[in-house]
């Protein structure tokens, strides 16, 4: 035995290190699970919040896409003296001549006329319901459809016949159409033809009672001026924008500034974005849970180092370097925290999926939610495990072996 040179220190293989790191977790499963619970809850909260808001936005976007982003609404604006301007009666026909326009429908508000379920309702109980004249192709252009009965046609538009918007029907307490059913408007009976579904892009239709233009002029003293014009452009962004830019001048060539043009789908998108503002609170709660989880992991690692002094002593006697002991306990903390994080992602994703499924949304879990959750778990494990790992490595072998 004359050799005086030593073999080089061998680094532990990744597989061996993984097995060592798993020792503490494997031998004390319940304790490991409880100490990782804080991280699980924190990561689950963050993933669920981000997932739910992304899924809800996806649901809303799908809804908006189904309604179409090519709807443009032209309404009368204000004139120079501050009064309400009127749209010229020729505006719909003028707009229909624009290239790229596929449909033009309009409504006109019938002023000073209210509608009631019957003539027994006191006249002050208007329920916020407007009476509007409508063209016969309105539902398709405004992004709604007929829920009950049918819409106005060329024949019924001339007669005292009405169709109810979704909210108007609800406020009147009408949920189906009977043969011969009537409502009271402008001092006479109107037969009920149908009820519309909600129109998310044109909520003003929801709270209206719709009658034909000829009937409105004949029975309700309507002046025939349109107040809202619903314009569908060819369904692409460029055409919609081009039409948008031309609408005001085309609707009222004399006073384009007295015309308001809007794109209702844009308002819905903005609304969806505003909804996400509440997420901050829940993300904050998730961060607090993560902090508590980090303290839990640090605590359990401090205890583990104290409990496993003899194991540390044995490993040092078997030839483990300080660095290898440090790495073992650091990887154990990271593994513990990573397992908690993975469980949290699973829980967050599952709750997002079940809620989104119930709401009929597409399940969207943004990559930054789960990747961020995993990264946070790894970072927390590393930070929480650092001090205990340093303590374990600093322990002298004899000190570790003596402490039985």
């Amino acid at each position, binding site marked *: 035995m004359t050799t005086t040179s030593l*073999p080089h220190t061998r680094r532990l293989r990744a*597989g061996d290190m993984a097995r060592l790191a798993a020792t503490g977790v494997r031998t004390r499963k319940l304790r490991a699970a409880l100490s990782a619970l804080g991280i699980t809850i924190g990561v689950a909260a963050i993933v669920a919040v981000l997932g739910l808001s992304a899924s809800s936005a996806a649901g809303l976007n799908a809804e908006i896409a189904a309604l179409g982003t090519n709807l443009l609404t032209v309404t009368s604006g204000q004139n120079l003296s501050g009064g309400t301007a009127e749209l010229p009666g020729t505006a719909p026909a003028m707009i229909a001549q624009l290239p790229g326009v596929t449909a033009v429908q309009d409504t006109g508000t019938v002023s000073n006329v209210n509608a009631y379920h019957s003539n027994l309702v006191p006249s002050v109980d208007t329920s916020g319901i407007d009476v509007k004249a409508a063209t016969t192709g309105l539902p398709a252009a405004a992004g709604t459809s007929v829920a009950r009965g049918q819409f106005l046609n060329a024949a019924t538009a001339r007669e005292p016949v009405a169709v109810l918007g979704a909210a108007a029907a609800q406020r009147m307490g009408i949920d189906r159409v009977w043969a011969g059913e009537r409502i009271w408007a402008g001092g006479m009976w109107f037969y009920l033809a149908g009820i519309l579904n909600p129109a998310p892009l044109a909520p003003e239709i929801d709270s209206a009672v719709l009658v034909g233009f000829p009937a409105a002029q004949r029975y309700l003293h309507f002046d025939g001026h349109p107040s809202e014009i619903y314009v569908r452009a060819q369904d692409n962004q460029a055409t919609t924008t081009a039409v948008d830019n031309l609408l005001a001048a085309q609707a009222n060539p004399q006073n384009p500034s007295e015309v308001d043009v809007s794109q209702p789908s844009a308002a819905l998108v903005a609304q969806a974005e505003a909804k996400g503002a509440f997420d901050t609170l829940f993300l904050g709660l998730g961060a607090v849970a993560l902090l508590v989880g980090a303290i839990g992991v640090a605590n359990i690692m401090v205890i583990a180092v104290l409990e496993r002094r003899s194991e540390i002593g044995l490993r040092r*006697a*078997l*030839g*483990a*370097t300080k*660095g*290898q002991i440090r790495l073992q306990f650091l990887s154990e903390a990271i593994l513990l925290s990573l397992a908690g994080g993975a469980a949290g992602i699973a829980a967050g994703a599952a709750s997002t999926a079940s809620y989104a499924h119930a709401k009929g949304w597409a399940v969207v879990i943004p990559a930054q939610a789960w990747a961020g959750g995993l990264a946070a778990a790894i970072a927390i494990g590393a930070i929480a495990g650092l001090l205990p790992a340093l303590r374990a490595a600093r322990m002298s072998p004899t000190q570790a072996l003596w402490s039985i």
Partner: protein
Amino acid sequence: MSTPVLELENVTKVYPGPPPVRALDGVSLAVAAGELVAVTGPSGSGKTTLLHLAGALDKPTGGSVRITGLDIAGLGDKALSRLRAARIGFVFQQLFLAEHQTVLGNVADGLLYAGVRLAERRERAMEALAAVGLAGRARARPTQLSGGQRQRVAIARALADRPAVVLADEPTGNLDQATGHAVLDLLEELSQAGTTIVVITHDRSIAGRARRQIHILDGRITADTAVMASAGEGTR
């Protein structure tokens, strides 16, 4: 004459702190390859300190400790760890067997820090288990074994790396008389096969079976049969 496996020269070890404890006081000894040495002495005589220094777990306050010719005073943590991994096998009284692992896994872990692949670790662990007569219990858990069998697993773990020297601290301390002697039979057998073994024990009947006995009292060697028998060497 070849370099001794283990060589202590005028070694002192003082533990600081009021009052300082002089655990070893001028100890000199040399252990040659293939020897079976028993170190005896009462509690507090410095036996365990001697084992820690001989096993490169601690450094002396004065004097020099050479393991396979290497003076440990000049070695850093990495080199000392390497030395322990490659040249020294430990058997502790408390055994330190991992209950969640099989007997084979425990023995194979003796090679973990020597940079040996898992397959080869298992292979060499099987050889070591065969050497201690436990090849049949490789898949058992330590808790399923008797005290004597567990002690033999700990010995197999120390042997797995084919160390230059095996240091055993009270290997029979937790065993009854008969089992203790059976373990010593095994150590004798291993010694005859060429392993250098130093056994620390307070049991004189166990110590009596070693060819060489060293007695320590208050940190000094009071008797070393190698020195006394050096004149009559070769009588056996």
